[in-house]
């Protein structure tokens, strides 16, 4: 029986965020995911992914690298619970999460 796959990514650089309240967007459901964004003391952006779809590390890395390139936020921890969302849905939820952080917009 296939278990979960856990992935970690660290992206360096970016604009440091002022302190903000954690925010949650999305729901863990088939083809969907939830994204929790929290302030972090480290520079850069750390992303932890728990996913039921195993074997997609390279796709996750491409989608998350694109996210970091588009927003360039630092001092941010992103935690994801995923149930087989497509890359487009993942990008949408990440954008929603950034929109939910006051002060994340340049």
């Amino acid at each position: 029986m296939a278990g979960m796959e856990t992935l970690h990514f660290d992206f360096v650089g970016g604009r440091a965020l002022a302190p903000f309240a954690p925010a949650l967007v999305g729901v863990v459901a088939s083809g969907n995911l939830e994204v929790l964004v929290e302030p972090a003391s480290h520079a850069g952006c750390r992303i932890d992914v728990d996913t039921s779809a195993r074997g997609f590390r390279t796709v996750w890395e491409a989608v998350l690298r694109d996210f970091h390139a588009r927003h360039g936020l630092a001092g941010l921890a992103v935690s994801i619970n995923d149930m087989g969302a497509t890359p487009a849905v993942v990008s949408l939820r990440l954008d929603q999460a950034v929109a939910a952080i006051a002060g994340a917009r340049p």
Partner: protein
Amino acid sequence: MTQSFAEMSARERLDALVDAGSFHEWLPPSARVTSPHLAQLGVPAAFDDGVAIGRATLAGRAIFVAAQEGAFMGGGVGEVHGAKLVGLLQRALRDRPDAVVLLAESGGVRLHEANAGLIAVSEVMRALLDVRAAGIATVLLIGGENGCFGGMGIVARCADTVVMSDIARHAMSGPEVIESAHGAGEFDSRDRALVWRTTGGKHRWLSGDCDGLVDDDPDAFRAAAIAALDVHRPMTLEALQQESALLQARADADGDNADAFELWTRLGISDSRAIPDLEADAVRALRPAAAAALANGGA
């Protein structure tokens, strides 16, 4: 065009229900109190285990509130999910808010968690009855797309007040469960019209199973919840005997397991075939006649 309450997420419903910005969450997603069981099954957890709990104000009154997310595991009650509800209810006994409002959307016990989920649901029932017995108003709002079934269907009926939208559903066994146990001849779960007229808000309203029938609209649910803040139905022996007599009268009226159309006709509704197409307010107006017919043992 207002937003559909059924299509909102649990957290959107919660925000739309209470006074703006008044919700203070306990055990929020960042606390990561998640299911200890799901990872072993290869199923992703949710940071809130599918339920948000906390305190808020409603029309300025202090309430405790919970909202179940039907999109996560069908709103199933797992060990942590149930413990969050029980903790909320037990805290209500200590802090005595004016009411506890539960936004229910659940298929019942989360079967992945087996006995832990079953025990959790029974603990929620006990805790809800304790809160009701303490004279704190208990309000169940059923408006999510998944309805309110199984153990949560029983929990709902433990409250002082149950409010449903016309497109909400409430029952014990869900349509697929009945069909798999007794066959499509008994109950065809793919017949949506049959499912809705048997478990839907209009039927629950006409047969006396819910206390409010509203449109699929967040403002309508908010108004109904405010109206329920001072509704107390103590569970006295007399009240239970009245309830029992009502259920017996309904069972008599439904003697040969009639279709809802037939039962509505027996409850004195002249054009029962028109009910599925009526707006909620039109169906609301039919309740007194149905209640009177039921009290008289069927028309």
